[in-house]
C-alpha cells in the first residue's frame, strides 16, 4: 500500500451528482397511483338516456348478474321498454360481454375496480343512477362496429331492376330464400323492443325465432294469433317495428332486422293456411255480428269473432273484399293471389263475405243494397270498418276540368282491371304513400310523371323506400311547389297547371317548418292530367242522420271507448275512420280491440 493520493476514491462519490435533476426510478413521495390500463374492465357505467332497456346485457350474462328493473322517472315508450339494468357484483366476472352486445353503446365499463364496504347488499346498484363517480374513468367500451357482437348488416333483399319494374305489374320484391331468411332471422336478439312500436303487439321475436329454427309452420301459427292478414302486412306494412329495432341505433334504419320480409317469408312458405293452422272454430252461439266494410279491421273482427263462435257477415261494397289493400295498394306491391289466399282462409273458418253489397240508409233500391236500419235490427252488434273512401279536393280553380282526377278512383280502377283514361303527361300532387303508389302506377302506363309536393322531401309522409323506388323509376320530384290553378283548353280539358314555388319558414313555436309561397314565383307546367293525392276522408252518407249525430264525429273521425264501442250502443268501429295513424296494422289492432269489446258486450261481461 502506497501513500499516494487516491484520486479516484475521492472523486468517484461525486459522480453521483450527475443524477441530480433526473427522474428517479424509485417510488415517489407523495405516493402517486399508477394509472389503470385504458381498456380496463371495471365497474359498469350506463347512460340512462341512451339505454333503451332491451335487456341484451341481462340475457347474455352467464352469471345472471344483471336484472332489468323499473327506474323511477323512466317511462316505457315506443322503442324503449322503460327498464334499466341493475348489476350484482357478487356475480359479475367482468367479462364485458354485456358491453359487447349493447346495441346503443350506452353500457360501458369504467377503469375503477376497487370498492370496499361491510354491507354485501351495497354491491348491488343501477349503473347510471348510482355511483356516478365511475363515469369519469371510461374503460372498456364497444364504440366501433367491429367490437360489437351484434350482426349489424341486413341480408339484402333482391328487387326487380327499375327499368324492368316500369314495364310490369308483377311483384317487384322477390322475397328471401330459405337460407337468406334463416340468416336474417339469426341476427335478431329477441329483445322485443319492436313490439312497443307495433299497434297490434305482434309476437315479433317469437315468430322470428321460429323462422331461425326452421319451424315455418310454427311461425305462421304465432303470426295468426293476432293478425288475420299477415301476408299483406309482410308486403306492405308501414313497419314501425323496424324503425324501432335496436339494430337501428348502431347500424341505421336500413339495417334493422327485416321483420316485414321475414313475416312475408313465413307466410309464403305455404299454399294455404288451413292445414298449417288447423283451427277449430267454436260452435255457433246464436249471436250475429254485422261488419260494414271488408277492409283489414272488418276482416279481423269477422275472423276472430267467428273463431269465438259468433256468426259474422261482412258487407263489402266492392267486387272483392280487402278494403284499401285491394283497391288502393298497387298489385306490384301486393298481388291479388296473395290477398285471395288470406281471404280464402278467412272464409274457410265460416265467415260470410257478401261482396258487391252496399249498405245504405232507408229502403234498399236494388238487390245489391241492404239498409243499415235492417242490419241494426237483425244483428246483435254492428262493426263499422268503413275506412276513408272520399278523396279530398285541392280546392283550386279548374278542378272540374276533364283530366283533373283523384288518385284513389284511379288506383281503384287500375286494381280492378278497368280501363283508365290518362294522357302522356301527368302531375300528381301530394307526398304520401297514395301519391307514391299513384306516380309509380302511372309510370307503368308509360306516363311522364311529375310529383308536386308543398314541403321538402324529408317532410314527405311517404315511406322512404317508396320515394327512392319512385325516383328510380323515373318520377320527377318537384318539392316546395303549391298548385294555384289548373288551366284548361277551349274544349274544357286540362292543358297545364300553374304552381307557385314556396320557401320553408321555421315555425317560431318549434313545430315543423311551414311552406310559404314566394311572391311572383309562378310556373306553368304543361300536362294532360292533374291527379290529387292529398288525403281521404270517411263517407258517412250511408248512415241514418240521427246515428251520425249520436256518433259525435270529431274532425271526421268516430270516437270510440277502450272496448272499441262508439257512443251508440251496439255499434263498434275501427280502422282508418277511427284512428289517426290510418294504416293497415292499426286497423287490425282496432279490430282486435273490438273483438274483445263485442265479445264482452254480447256475453254480458
Amino acid at each position, binding site marked *: 500500500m502506497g501513500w499516494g493520493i487516491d484520486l479516484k476514491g475521492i472523486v468517484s462519490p461525486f459522480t453521483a451528482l450527475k443524477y441530480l435533476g433526473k427522474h428517479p426510478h424509485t417510488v415517489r413521495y407523495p405516493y402517486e397511483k399508477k394509472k389503470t390500463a385504458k381498456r380496463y374492465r371495471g365497474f359498469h357505467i350506463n347512460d340512462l338516456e341512451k339505454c333503451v332497456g332491451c335487456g341484451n346485457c341481462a340475457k347474455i350474462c352467464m352469471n*345472471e348478474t344483471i336484472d332489468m*328493473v323499473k327506474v323511477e322517472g323512466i317511462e*316505457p315508450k315506443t322503442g324503449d*321498454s322503460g327498464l334499466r339494468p341493475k348489476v350484482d357484483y357478487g356475480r359479475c366476472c367482468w367479462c364485458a360481454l354485456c358491453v359487447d352486445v349493447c346495441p346503443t353503446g350506452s353500457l360501458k365499463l369504467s377503469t375503477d375496480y376497487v370498492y370496499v364496504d361491510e354491507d354485501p347488499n351495497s354491491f348491488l346498484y343501477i349503473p347510471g343512477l348510482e355511483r356516478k363517480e365511475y363515469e369519469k374513468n371510461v374503460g372498456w367500451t364497444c364504440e366501433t362496429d367491429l367490437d360489437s357482437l351484434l350482426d349489424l348488416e341486413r341480408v339484402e333483399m333482391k328487387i326487380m331492376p327499375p327499368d324492368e319494374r316500369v314495364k310490369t305489374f308483377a311483384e317487384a320484391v322477390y322475397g328471401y330464400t330459405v337460407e337468406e331468411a334463416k340468416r336474417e332471422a339469426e341476427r335478431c336478439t329477441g329483445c322485443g323492443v319492436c*313490439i312497443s312500436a307495433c299497434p297490434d303487439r305482434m309476437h315479433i321475436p317469437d315468430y322470428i325465432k321460429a323462422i331461425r329454427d326452421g319451424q315455418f309452420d310454427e311461425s305462421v301459427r304465432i303470426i295468426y294469433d293476432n293478425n288475420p292478414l299477415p301476408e299483406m302486412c309482410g308486403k306492405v306494412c308501414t313497419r314501425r317495428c323496424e324503425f324501432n329495432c335496436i339494430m337501428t341505433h348502431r347500424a341505421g334504419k336500413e339495417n334493422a332486422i327485416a321483420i316485414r320480409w321475414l313475416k312475408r317469408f313465413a307466410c309464403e312458405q305455404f299454399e294455404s293456411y288451413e292445414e298449417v293452422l288447423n283451427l277449430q272454430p267454436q260452435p255457433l252461439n246464436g249471436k250475429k255480428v254485422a261488419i260494414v266494410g271488408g277492409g283489414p279491421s272488418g276482416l279481423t273482427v269477422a275472423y276472430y269473432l267467428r273463431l269465438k263462435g259468433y256468426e259474422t257477415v261482412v258487407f263489402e261494397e266492392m267486387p272483392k273484399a280487402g278494403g284499401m289493400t285491394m283497391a288502393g295498394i298497387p298489385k306490384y306491391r301486393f298481388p291479388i293471389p296473395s290477398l285471395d289466399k288470406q281471404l280464402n282462409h278467412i272464409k274457410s273458418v265460416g265467415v260470410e263475405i257478401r261482396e258487391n253489397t252496399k249498405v245504405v240508409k232507408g229502403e234498399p233500391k236494388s238487390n245489391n243494397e241492404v239498409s243499415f236500419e235492417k242490419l241494426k235490427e237483425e244483428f246483435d252488434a254492428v262493426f263499422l270498418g268503413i275506412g276513408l273512401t272520399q278523396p279530398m279536393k285541392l280546392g283550386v280553380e279548374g278542378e272540374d276540368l276533364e283530366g283533373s282526377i283523384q288518385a284513389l278512383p284511379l288506383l281503384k280502377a287500375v286494381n280492378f282491371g278497368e280501363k283508365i283514361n290518362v294522357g302522356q303527361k301527368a302531375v300528381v300532387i301530394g307526398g304520401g304513400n297514395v301519391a307514391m303508389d299513384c306516380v309509380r302506377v302511372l309510370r307503368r302506363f308509360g306516363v311522364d310523371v311529375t310529383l308536386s309536393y308543398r314541403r321538402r322531401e324529408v317532410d314527405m309522409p311517404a315511406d322512404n323506400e317508396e320515394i327512392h323506388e319512385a325516383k328510380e323509376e323515373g318520377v320527377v320530384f318537384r318539392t316546395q311547389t303549391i298548385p294555384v290553378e289548373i288551366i284548361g283548353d277551349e274544349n274544357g280539358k286540362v292543358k297545364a297547371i300553374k304552381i307557385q314555388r314556396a320557401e320553408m319558414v321555421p315555425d317560431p313555436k318549434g313545430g315543423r317548418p311551414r311552406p310559404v309561397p314566394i311572391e311572383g314565383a309562378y310556373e306553368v307546367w304543361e300536362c294532360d292530367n292533374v291527379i290529387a293525392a292529398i288525403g281521404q276522408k270517411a263517407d258517412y252518407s250511408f248512415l241514418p242522420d240521427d246515428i251520425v249525430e249520436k256518433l259525435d264525429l270529431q274532425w271526421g273521425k268516430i270516437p270510440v271507448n277502450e272496448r272499441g264501442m262508439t257512443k251508440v250502443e251496439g255499434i263498434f268501429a275501427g280502422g282508418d275512420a277511427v284512428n289517426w295513424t290510418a294504416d293497415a296494422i292499426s286497423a287490425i289492432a282496432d279490430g282486435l280491440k273490438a273483438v274483445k269489446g263485442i265479445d264482452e258486450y254480447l256475453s254480458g261481461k
Partner: protein
Amino acid sequence: MSYLEELKVKIENMFSPEKCYFPKENLLSFLVSNSEVRGALSYLKDVEGFKHFVMLSCVDWLEEGKFELVYIVWHPEKKVNAMVKTKIDREKAEFQSLHDMWRQICTYEREIWEMFGVNFIGHPRLEPFILEDWKDMPPMRRDFDTLHYVNEHYEWREGREESYKPRDYIGEAFDEWRKK
C-alpha cells in the same frame, strides 16, 4: 416481398400448412398437422429466430369435435409474430408437451389442461392450478353450462326479487301505459 411473405413461401415448401394467411399486418398464421407442430416451431425458433414464446391458447370447436391449439411466437428483431395452429380430437384430447422448447409453455399447458381438459403427454406437473376442488367438467369447454353451475353454487342476493323480461314487460305494461 416482405419478410413474412418470404417466410410464408418457406413454410409452404417445408410443411403442408392449411390456411396460411396474414390475419394482421405483422402476423402469419397457419394450421399444420399434429406431427408437424414441433418441427414448425423448432424451425421458427432455431432457424428463423422467433426466440420469444408469446402464448399458447386453445379454441373449442364443439361442432367439429376438435380442440385447436394455438402457439404464438415473436421475432424480436423483425418485430413479427407467427401463429402455429393444430387441431386435436375433442373426445380423446391429448397432445405432446412442448415444455422443453420454452420453459413457460409448462404453465400454459397446465392451464389448458385444467380449463379444457387437454392432456399434455410428458408434462412434468399436470396438477390443479387455479380451480380449487374442481370436480365438474373443465369450465372453458363450450358445453359447460355456466348458468346452471352458477345457479347451483351461488346464492341469490337479497334485493334481487324485482326483475322483468323486457319482452314480456312490453307486452303487458305497454297497453297500460297507452291508455294514459
